[in-house]
């Protein structure tokens, strides 16, 4: 999947993945896609909750060798 911006939040723990995701999405226009990579297991639940609160959409989620990747489309 193609994204407009990639964010590497690997190795960061709560609340930094959310804070970084918020800052990254603020730089995008509506409809653009942010790709976020995290290793914090808490983010598995937190990113979807944050996406829901902001009215954004998760287009894809995958996990590979402990790295979780989300594709988030900005509302």
């Amino acid at each position, binding site marked *: 999947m193609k994204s407009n911006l990639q964010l590497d939040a690997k*190795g*960061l*723990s*709560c*609340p*930094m993945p*959310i*804070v970084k*995701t*918020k800052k990254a999405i603020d730089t995008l226009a509506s409809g653009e896609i942010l790709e976020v990579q995290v290793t914090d297991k808490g983010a598995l639940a*937190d990113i979807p909750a*944050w996406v829901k*609160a*902001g009215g954004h959409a998760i287009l894809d989620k995958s996990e590979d060798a402990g790295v979780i990747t989300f594709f988030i489309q900005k509302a």
Partner: protein
Amino acid sequence: MSNKVAIIASNGGLFDAYKVFNIATAAAATEKEVAIFFTFEGLNLIHKQGMHALPMPAGAEHYAEGFAKANVPAIPQLVEMAQELGVKFIACQMTMDVMGLTTDDFVEGIEVGGAVTFLEFAKDAAPSLTF
């Protein structure tokens, strides 16, 4: 639905600081309007020097290793992040007077107020949290 989160920080340890600032930054990053009322020992959390050396609870010192391993941000970093995200810091005037502290003792950009200042903000906040 309320878009405000009101937090009272009344304890001054390292664990207390993480509870307060993690919730505050997460809420602010989720487009909430956040205010923290720092009172009594809670003032330590925004004290220019104090926030760099917040104590662990007695007997919990061994968690220092876990903090390092989990790559948890330092408290001053979270304080800066919270302010950058627009979290409002209100220091309790009465406690400052009792402890002989002035605004110069605290990080830049704080407000000083009394209980009513906080209550006015918190009256339509959900959740209101106390740490």
